[in-house]
């Protein structure tokens, strides 16, 4: 019996205080006594052992050779999670991830907090890549002419080709995306060097080629500097989205947030200028945002350079833009920026995302002039995250078209989709080996397919930044018969070692010598690296950058001035087309991932489609409204396929620009036709044979050695059809519609936006007055016992990147519902990010983001109205939803002022899907007809509490992280015990900026928000 415990369990303080405490054993039913097991207990035990045996027999064993991040393989127990450190390129940045595995399979990706690059943050794309591992359409094994063959047969075929080509002196091209892994690169080098006529071509679908070109021209080194947004006190961004999609978003977001701390009298919050044509995620966070047309970016930079040159008293090494080349407002803004940059020289950072060599050269010169090098951007530890060379790709295309390529090998890329004209060119290659793991546009053209394993299934290494070596281990035995590029190349060169041996050999031979601590044997060191996921080693000696070459800048300035002069006047019937990657889907690599397809775009809040984004003024001028289908016909290259897209008006976008997201129109996306529930009025997410959205990549133009996203021009014609966007937010402003607005309260008080000087001057941050009274109708006799869990969300730090949304989806098994259901406002996400516009006049808007999940109200309106007690308050302050009690009246959702409750309108689970392996076993799958909502990751709370109890230690602040908090790249979300005055969450909750949403309802939410502070001038008296 359990009465040997000294603890007396009680149900309430009253009970404890009562004269005769009623001791309740910990286990209400007596445990089976050792002496006599009765019949029922015997049956229970037999049943349990049988079930346990079946369950453990069903689960896959962990990958035999993997080393966990925490603990040793002996710790692996059925039903107990373990972590494996890995590296992910799903968002193109090579961030460190920790893979949470249960019963031999990964179930969740989380940022590796120790990893120098992302430090625990993880983008939506990376987190969603887990689902791609379990994609049931992955290629099963090697294919030769479409027929499954053995690896030996395929290798023989490839080697025959290679031998024949070598013998005939033919050409072999290996086309890949940026591959930074030292072992892989070593094998590629070996492969290329093994015979003449072989070469590697690298490209990035989200290209930074012009930037690399610019640095090469300026310094003689083809390298991408490391941008340190944490050190930048003044950030000026031109046409780049570093917080959303550009190069290394998780890294940038964390740095950016760390530089923008508004609290305290000595707050040195950075200031952020954004110049861009469309509203990017980064633009939504800007203190000062200026709309510039794509054609104005380079002249604006030139203008800025001229102004700064004047400040510095140095001559501009080229022609300054003509006075009338820029709009007066833009000139004025650039003048202000120049003043600020000059004041903050050595602490500023100018970024340009345009794939235009001239603009990049000017940017580079500005940073050079301001002395930022070595402070906010670093060429000594360059980034390896983008190495693509668009010029080489274009050359390859021409080579292919000329029929000069005898064998093309494509690895880790999808050029037939990503690059204009490449599909036709690849079709002419003599032979084509594709290493695609999932059938794509490129593999469709290949005669030989050697599928690569998913990132989570393979041994791999990476060097995303010079000197930062990262590793990946398989987290489960390969689901398909696959082989890595490294192993394939080795095999074709006669080396039959397996992947792990190849990797280890490379590290032993090449990297072991560079480590400083030679005391440890290699094996142990290597295992330590694998466990940790990365190691910092002295960077390989690289070519030192030379002095900045003013001559090249002179040429660039000249080219910009010339282009500005020849640019056709605005106001013509044509629109400038701007192609951009969307958060989540990026270049389309995640197009087969339903989580990413259904992730609302952080700015437009649309899902499952790309749109023709127009500024409201342009849409009005063209007589178009949201949902009208238009046909964009390219006027500068009529041979391009027209794009038919629905209109979406986007406030804050430059006029006469149509912005179209890349990454859509991927072949095979009609697999999602029936992703949603099937019923009589359901509309298919996509028509069979069609694609989700349309592919805009053919509209990329090759300009000045790089693929430009913003040079095309298009004429617009309405087709007369309509296609409503599947948008998660109908109304876009905190202000209620003008004709319905009451005198007071025309603006809803949900998000507090305040200028930094105003915050420091008055401490006030709210838009409206506080109505919170201290009059209570009844005594508060439900004080949480032990803990009181709560969240604090810093809206100043939140970038709206939506990593938390996918984090929550993955952690809590939130189903995907498809386009039609989203259109019907039935998205299931427990955590949504509200995005509101505040009109500033002139077509400009301020944008605020507000992550909103269940607020875990102390006076929860949902709880009162549930007839069957399916939602109630836990004694730790959580608003809990008890699924199996719920009968589904939806009254709670109606009564929730935040509308954060989600109802299972249909049975969303599909038992026959392989993706179900990604389900978190700790979280119930909800059936049809019941309500669900954010649980503050109660399963994590329980696990941490159990762990602490097992360790015999009290639970420490920070032991528990919710999924949204864990993945947040900008540390905007903090979970903890509000009742503990020393916890981080308490500190934040009592900060002057803290407030609760809809405070006047006196709901006593457990989620506090910290006002969004912008470093702007403020009210000025």
């Amino acid at each position, binding site marked *: 019996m359990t009465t040997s415990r000294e603890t007396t369990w009680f149900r309430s303080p009253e009970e404890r205080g009562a004269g005769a405490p009623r001791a309740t054993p910990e286990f209400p039913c007596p445990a089976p006594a050792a002496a006599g097991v009765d019949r029922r207990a015997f049956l229970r035990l037999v049943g349990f052992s049988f079930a346990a045996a079946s369950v453990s027999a069903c689960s896959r064993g962990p990958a035999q050779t993997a080393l966990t991040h925490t603990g040793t393989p002996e710790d692996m127990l059925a039903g107990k999670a373990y972590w494996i450190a890995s590296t992910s390129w799903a968002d193109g940045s090579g961030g460190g991830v920790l893979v949470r595995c249960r019963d031999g399979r990964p179930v969740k990706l989380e940022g590796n907090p120790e990893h120098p690059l992302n430090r625990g943050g993880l983008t939506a794309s990376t987190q969603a890549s887990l689902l791609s591992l379990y994609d049931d359409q992955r290629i099963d094994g090697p294919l030769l002419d479409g027929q499954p063959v053995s690896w030996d047969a395929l290798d023989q075929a490839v080697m025959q080709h290679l031998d024949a080509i070598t013998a005939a002196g033919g050409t072999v091209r290996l086309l890949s995306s940026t591959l930074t892994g030292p072992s892989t690169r070593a094998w590629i080098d070996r492969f290329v060097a093994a015979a003449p006529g072989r070469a590697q071509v690298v490209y990035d679908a989200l290209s930074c080629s012009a930037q690399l070109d610019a640095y090469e021209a300026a310094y003689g080194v083809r390298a991408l500097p490391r941008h340190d947004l944490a050190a930048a006190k003044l950030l000026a961004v031109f046409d780049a989205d570093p917080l959303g999609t550009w190069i290394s978003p998780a890294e940038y977001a964390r740095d950016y947030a760390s530089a923008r701390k508004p609290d305290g009298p000595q707050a040195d919050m950075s200031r952020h200028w954004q110049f861009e044509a469309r509203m990017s995620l980064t633009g939504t966070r800007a203190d000062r945002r200026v709309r510039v047309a794509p054609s104005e970016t380079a002249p604006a930079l030139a203008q800025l350079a001229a102004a700064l040159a004047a400040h510095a008293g140095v001559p501009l090494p080229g022609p300054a833009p003509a006075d009338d080349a820029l709009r007066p407002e833009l000139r004025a803004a650039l003048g202000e920026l120049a003043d600020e940059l000059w004041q903050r020289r050595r602490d500023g950072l100018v970024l340009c995302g345009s794939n235009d060599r001239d603009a990049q050269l000017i940017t580079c010169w500005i940073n050079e002039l301001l002395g930022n090098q070595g402070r906010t951007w670093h060429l000594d530890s360059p980034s390896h995250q983008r190495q693509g060379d668009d010029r080489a790709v274009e050359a390859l295309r021409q080579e292919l078209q000329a029929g000069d390529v005898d064998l093309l090998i494509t690895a880790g890329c999808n050029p037939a989709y990503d690059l204009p004209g490449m599909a036709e060119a690849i079709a002419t290659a003599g032979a084509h080996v594709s290493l695609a793991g999932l059938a794509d546009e490129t593999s469709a053209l290949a005669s030989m397919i050697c599928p690569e394993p998913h990132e989570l299934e393979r041994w791999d290494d990476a060097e995303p930044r010079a000197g930062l070596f990262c590793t990946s281990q398989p987290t489960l035995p390969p689901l398909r018969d696959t082989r890595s590029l490294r192993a394939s190349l080795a095999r074709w060169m006669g080396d039959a070692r397996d992947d792990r041996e190849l990797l280890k050999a490379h590290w032993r031979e090449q990297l072991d010598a560079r480590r400083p601590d030679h005391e440890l044997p290699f094996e142990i060191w290597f295992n330590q690296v694998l466990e940790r996921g990365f190691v910092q080693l002295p960077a390989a000696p690289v070519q030192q950058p030379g002095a900045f070459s003013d001559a090249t800048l002179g040429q660039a300035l000249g080219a910009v001035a010339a282009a500005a002069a020849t640019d056709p006047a605005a106001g013509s019937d044509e629109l400038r087309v701007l192609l951009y990657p969307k958060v989540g889907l990026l270049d389309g690599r995640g197009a087969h991932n339903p989580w990413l397809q259904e992730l609302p775009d952080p700015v437009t809040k649309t899902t499952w489609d790309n749109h023709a984004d127009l500024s409201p003024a342009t849409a009005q001028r063209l007589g178009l409204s949201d949902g009208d289908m238009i046909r964009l016909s390219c006027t500068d290259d009529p041979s391009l396929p027209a794009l038919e897209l629905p209109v979406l008006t986007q406030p804050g976008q430059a006029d006469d620009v149509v912005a179209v997201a890349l990454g859509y129109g991927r072949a095979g996306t009609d697999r999602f036709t029936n992703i949603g529930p099937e019923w009589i009025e359901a509309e298919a997410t996509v028509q069979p044979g069609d694609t989700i959205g349309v592919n805009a990549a053919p509209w990329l133009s090759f300009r000045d050695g790089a693929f430009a996203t913003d040079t095309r021009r298009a004429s617009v014609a309405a087709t007369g059809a309509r296609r409503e966007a599947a948008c998660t937010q109908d109304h876009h402003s905190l202000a209620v519609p003008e004709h319905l*607005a009451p005198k007071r309260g025309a603006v809803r008080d949900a998000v507090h936006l305040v200028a930094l000087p105003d915050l420091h001057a008055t401490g006030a941050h709210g838009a409206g007055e506080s109505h919170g009274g201290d009059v209570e109708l009844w005594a508060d006799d439900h004080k949480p016992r032990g803990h009181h869990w709560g969240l604090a969300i810093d809206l100043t730090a939140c970038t709206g990147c939506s990593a938390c949304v996918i984090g929550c989806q993955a952690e809590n098994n939130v189903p995907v519902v498809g386009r039609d259901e989203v259109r019907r406002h039935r998205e299931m996400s427990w955590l949504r990010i509200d995005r509101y516009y505040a009109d500033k006049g002139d077509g400009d808007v301020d944008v605020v983001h507000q992550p909103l999940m269940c607020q875990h109200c102390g006076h929860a309106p949902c709880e009162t*109205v549930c007839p069957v007690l399916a939602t109630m308050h836990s004694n730790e302050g959580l608003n809990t939803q008890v699924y199996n009690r719920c009968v*589904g*009246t939806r*009254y709670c959702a109606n009564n929730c*002022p935040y509308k954060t409750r989600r109802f299972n309108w249909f049975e969303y689970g599909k038992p026959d899907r392989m993706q179900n392996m990604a389900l978190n076993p700790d979280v119930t799958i909800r059936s*049809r007809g019941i309500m669900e909502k954010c649980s503050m990751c109660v399963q994590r709370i329980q696990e941490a509490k159990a762990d602490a109890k097992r360790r015999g230690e009290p639970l420490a602040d920070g032991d528990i992280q919710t999924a949204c908090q864990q993945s947040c790249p900008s540390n905007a979300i903090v979970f903890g015990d509000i009742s503990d005055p020393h916890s981080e969450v308490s500190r934040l909750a009592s900060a002057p900026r803290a407030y609760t949403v809809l405070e006047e309802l006196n709901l006593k939410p457990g989620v506090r928000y910290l006002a969004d502070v912008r470093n702007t001038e403020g009210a000025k008296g």
Partner: protein
Amino acid sequence: MSADQRPPAGIAAATAQAGATSAPGLPSDLSAGATLPRDLDAEAQLPLIQGVTTPGEVTRDVCEPIERGPTKLWYIAIMVSASALLIGAACVAYQVAVGIGTWGLNRTVGWAFDITNFVFWVGIGHAGTLISAVLLLLRQRWRTSINRSAEAMTLFAVMCAGLFPLIHMGRPWLAHWVFPYPNLRGPLWVNFRSPLLWDVFAIGTYFIISAVFWYIGLVPDLATMRDRASGLRRKVIAFFALRWNGSGRTWARWEMACLLLAALATPLVVSVHSVVSTDFATATVPGWHTTVFPPYFVIGAVFSGFAMVLTLMLVARRVMRLEGYITHKHIGAMCKVIVFTSSIVGMAYGIELFIAWYSGSPYEQFAFANRIFGPMGWTYGIMVACNVLTPQLLWFKRIRKSIPAIFAITLLINVGMWFERFVIIVSSLSRDYLPSAWASYTPTLIELGTLLGSFGLFFTAFLIFCRFLPMIAMAEVRAVVAEQQHDAHGHAHASPEVIVPEPAPAERCGLRQVGVFDGPDGLLAAVRDARQRGLHIIDAFTPHPVHGLDDALGRRRSRLPFVTLVCGAIGLSVALWFQYWASSTDWPIDVGGKPFDSLPAFVPIAFELMVLLAGLGTAAALIIRSRLRPDTGSTNVAPPGATSDRFVLVLERVDASLSQDDVGQLWSRHGALDSWTEHES
């Protein structure tokens, strides 16, 4: 003895004298001399029941259409309504099989057609109770012609209403979880603070009490039908007629039971829609959170219910040729109720707007601005036009006299009241606090089909009712007819007699003297005469409750009210205790931070249970005490004609000084149609 014998028809006299200003012969008459509001309208001068002068005619007019069998029109109507019902059933089956997603709801608008229809149907039901209970308490005689069908309408409307909360659940197969029964989940009781739970009890009680009230009222008419029927039909009807024989004692208890049930149903009708309104009024949603909702909903329900009753009556009186029973007087009275309640509803709309403005709450202000001028403003327009503006036409007598005009207006009111609920529910939900969560709503075909199905259910049930049961409360109408006749003949009231103690049973001689009269006056006179002469009255059997018979028979006042009181007290205290115990002792659960033992939250259910137990207890006491029980109908339990048009007095000669001739004289003196002597079996 012949049923065709009638006293001289007195229509002309009735026309001159009958009125609603006094109600001497009403079954429910509580205290003589109570005055009712004087109706200055000329309609008041018309008799309530026209062209009918005898109880037998009532029986004939009501029963014959049922016995004749259905007409072609009925078949067409039932086919149409049954088709609608089938469509609805198919829609519900599909929705239950596939999911609530087949409705147009979303994360923001969690209720729309479902609860709109629910509140609409509950509202429709209210007129029935109001007419049968409230008007009974207020001694409005005009209710007798329509209360049966109005009550039936209540039952069917509550059935339709109850359907929606059931099928609107995500997991309707677990609907029984809303009842607090001992279970293996703890036992986990239910949340007594949830207005939805109050709904369960309120609607449940309402349905049960309405059904009981309706059935108790139906029993005498079933007896009439039983006595006209034969064969299997007789057996079936007799089963439900509970051996009703029209005995004076039973009538007295029956009247008391009706009165008590009416007294219980009246607060019930107020409470039910008040409780329904708390679904909204206690919520946080702007536009719902309004203290005016309970009276607003109740009066809206009365309003829509009367409109629906009138819609149906106008059709039924025409189709079933009941113009003599449902006269312009009835219609006029109902029109006045409608215009009165319409004005209150209009005032409620105004108060809502005023309070929204006066509250200073921007959310409230916006909710109402949005209701009127927002994207769904057209629904608000329909609501005001149909509910406030159109009924004002009824101020005009010409309109009140035009059946087509009234019919059109009542239809519009039904539409308008449906939209009122839709406006309250959907427009408030669709745009509440955070603009990010705003969403619109469009119904799906499944929802439209379900709404159609609910009408199908209602009309199918109503048509079946019309076809198989007396649409007119014959017993009560007979009483009204008799009273009209009584007034027309100008009989004076006999003053109450001194109660003479009954002779001891030992003196009885065992010979029963039976006299049959054609009207209550003769019967009453004979009873008084007989008692003065020391004759032992075994019982009197009448086709309707006869005013004064109880006194004349020397009966004690029924003790049913005591039963009602005890049962009600038990219901109230058990409900209060159980809610308190379950919520704060057995398994206290923190719900919205509220105290475990908050008494105000327990009031609605305690009230409903009090009414439920009191009502059931009263009905049970009536049935037990009067020895009513299901029967096969093989024997005649009532004297011939006593359930139709004959008033039968059964005496026993106990005084040896009285001869058989004396009894014969007694019969002939009071105009007995027939008389005989029978041996006690």
